[in-house]
């Protein structure tokens, strides 16, 4: 069991080696630390915005998605959506929003763990954080698609507004509304975190792969 754990955690860095090549071993630690930091901060910032403009709303309506909640003119947008038979926004991605903070905390800890693990298994620990922004966008798109395509056929405006797929990024339109959607600061922080995680793993592998190989070779040697 301890051998298996040792195999997963990977070899430790000898003190003399660490002293000799401090930068090499510090690079992945620092990069991944920054990645974690950005991911954590992103929880508090908006991931996605949509502005809806119509003649009678000259100041626009705003919808802002954080990982954990929706804000802005949700009530007003829901009120308008009932005319086309769209379900209330609060019903979309309820599980994701409820789980998001815990999920990000888990990703934070996994990347934290990845910094300790020097074997290739570390990559697996970092995978959720690295792919999170993409997963967010895909999830958002799928929910919008589900909501847009499943309009209540008995809604008052069902004859003039047909099921549609709302635009997740960029300009779209529905009824008399033009919609402008873009990504928020939170998303960009998560994306930067993702990029840093990948860069961090380049440093990680560069630093620890030789150690792993050497340890493997030693084991093979001993066995032989």
């Amino acid at each position, binding site marked *: 069991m301890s051998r298996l754990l040792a195999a997963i955690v990977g070899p*430790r860095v000898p003190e003399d080696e660490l002293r000799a090549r401090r930068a090499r071993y510090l690079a992945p630690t620092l990069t991944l630390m920054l990645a974690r930091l950005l991911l*954590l901060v992103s929880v508090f*910032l908006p991931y996605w915005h949509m502005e809806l403009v119509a003649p*009678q709303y000259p*100041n626009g309506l705003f919808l802002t998605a954080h990982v954990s909640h929706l804000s802005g003119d949700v009530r007003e947008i829901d009120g308008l959506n009932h*005319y086309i038979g769209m379900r209330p926004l609060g019903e979309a991605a309820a599980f994701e929003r409820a789980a998001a903070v815990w999920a990000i905390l888990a990703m934070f800890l996994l990347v934290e763990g990845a910094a300790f693990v020097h074997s290739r298994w570390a990559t697996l620990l970092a995978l959720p954080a690295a792919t999170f922004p993409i997963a967010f966008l895909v999830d958002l798109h799928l929910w919008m698609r589900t909501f847009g395509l499943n309009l209540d056929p008995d809604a008052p405006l069902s004859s003039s507004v047909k099921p549609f797929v709302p635009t997740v990024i960029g300009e779209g339109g529905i009824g008399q509304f033009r919609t402008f959607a873009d990504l928020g600061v939170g998303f960009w922080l998560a994306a930067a975190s993702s990029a840093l995680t990948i860069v961090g793993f380049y440093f990680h592998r560069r630093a620890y792969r030789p150690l792993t190989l050497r340890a493997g070779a030693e084991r093979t040697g001993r066995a032989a």
Partner: protein
Amino acid sequence: MKTTGSTFRFRTLAMTAALGGACLGMLAPEASAQESRRRRGGAEAAKPVELTAEHVGLLTKIADERRLNVDDLLAAAKTFMPSGRHDEYVLFSSGGQSGQVFAIGVPSMRLLRSIAVFTPESWQGYGFSGDNDHVAESLKIMGKPVLWGDTHHPALSETGGEYDGEWLFIGDKANARVAVIDLRDWETKQIVKNPLTISDHGAAFVTPDTEYIVEGGQYATVLGYGYAPPEQYKEAYRGMVTLWKFDRVKGRIDEARSFALELPPYWQDLADAGKRASDGFIFINSFNAEMAAGGVERGEPPFEAGASKRDMDYLHIIDWRKAEAAFKAGKAKAINGFPVIMLETSVAEGLLHFAPEPKSPHGVDITPNGQFIIVAGKLDPHVTVYSIDRVKRAIAEKKFSGQDAYGVPILDFDAVKEVQVELGLGPLHTQFDDKGYAYTSLFLDSAVARWTLGGEYESLNSDRPWKLVQKTPVQYNIGHLSAAEGDTVSPDGRYLISMSKWSVDRFLPTGPLLPQNFQLLDISQPGATMPVIYDMPLGVGEPHYCQMIKADKLKTWKVYPEVGWNPHTQRLDPNAPRQGQEGVTRSGDHVLVNMTAVRSHFHPEHVEVNEGDTVTWRITAVETAQDATHGFCIGAYNINLSLEPGEFAEFTFVADKPGTYPFYCTEFCSALHLEMMGYFHVKPKAVSATDADEASGAVVAR
């Protein structure tokens, strides 16, 4: 084989930084982020105008076709508001016999809104809320409804002598009432009836910090609604001035802390509170020092002659701080339950002095520095200017020329008079600008006179002091006039409104009843340049006075602060039904309806009661979008509400007319506005008796 301590320390540091960053993230306010996004689509900045030969040609062609001259084109350019552009000033005007207040944008002169005050107004749902309607209750006098008023003088609340944009007060001359309007939602919140007098005139004027709202009387009667024959005019009839205490926190007049002063039966006219140099005084004109009691039917001279016989009337000078102290010291006597400082007390305490003024004057207006009191002659071509320093000195040195029949000391005219300036025929009211000019309306001349002030104002323009500079004709019979913040301690100049009472030929004929003419004058240039640049017909009531406030001083709500807001209490109402709490419940013969209104339905849509039931109906407009207003009416039951976004309303009535009554939204709220309706079913007694078993349950909602 261990990681170094320094890395650990670094990690701890990073964790702290992460948490710090997270906190910063929380601080980054989402609203401001949205606001900055909103601004993205803001109004385009105006580009400098370049007129090409082609433009000039087009303008010339239009001007020729429409018979406009260059002055007309300039006037149009000064007043035209492109769509979406907001006016710089708001004019709050009395609505005269309409019993309302009107808000008008300046310089465009577009009517923005009416505010119902003393008259029920159906669009605003003002006074159409069943039996316990607090508006209807507040409109009762001596227990009976009085459904109109004659609004005369609006008064914006002041702080340090400046309009603060928070409250608006207005007097009802016909019934001696004062109303309080909250300028956050532009709704009347309170109406107080003067317990002493039937009618008034000198209302409303505020002291410089809105400590009191002044309501001066007019036609003398027996105080406290009493009776005495006209033969006892001098003995029994009295004038009065009431000082209503305003409680800013509650947003209400505090009747318990208000008091009045008994005055001789000289018909008190316009009033104004002193400011700066004259702070602490109230000035009131009068115009029947003769104490004529009329009686044209008995061969006596009519009032118009009798009340204009003497050469002089009395400017009343009241030290209101001393009066307040006397009131607080218990020196008032209760009349009709209201504390009144009697004349002999006023004389004994030195609260009241008279200054002679040329006969039957009208307006009394105080210069921005408070130094001069200007009394307009009405029947005299002069304005008479008094200096507050002279007045104070004369009081201190007791420079009296005598006393009146009630023992009130009369200050020596020459001791208090600064100067008299001849302006023309029928001077009525005076306003001020920022360049040392005063503006007086000349009723008979149908003109606005611009003249120069003296004292510290001398240096502000190149004209000689105390001289008439310009008379601009207005159409016609100007009453009040109003310059931009022109009765405050710091007038803005720029614009002046002539409230012309006759329009005669100015507009298309509208039958024998003609609109008033609100004329806008450009007073931004000094000297003789003071053109009329706009005529606005106002075909509702006969307005008297108006005040012009800088629009950015108003802190108007766009929608009510929270859904379920009670505008009467200005707070969230615990009884306001929320979504999910709708329903109809019965207890005995009392039915409670909890309803919500949202685009585009009422919930519930069917309300069933029995004939004779008392129905209490509560509605919350569950809306937060600006202008998403609903109405609610039940035809034949005289009920109509205006339910502005977030507003909660409650009304009670007896369902005494059996039948099926559609109720509907009276404000075109949405594409499905016509569908926003429901039925109010009132089961006739005979039918409900047979259904008695069914109806005995607690809930009768469908």
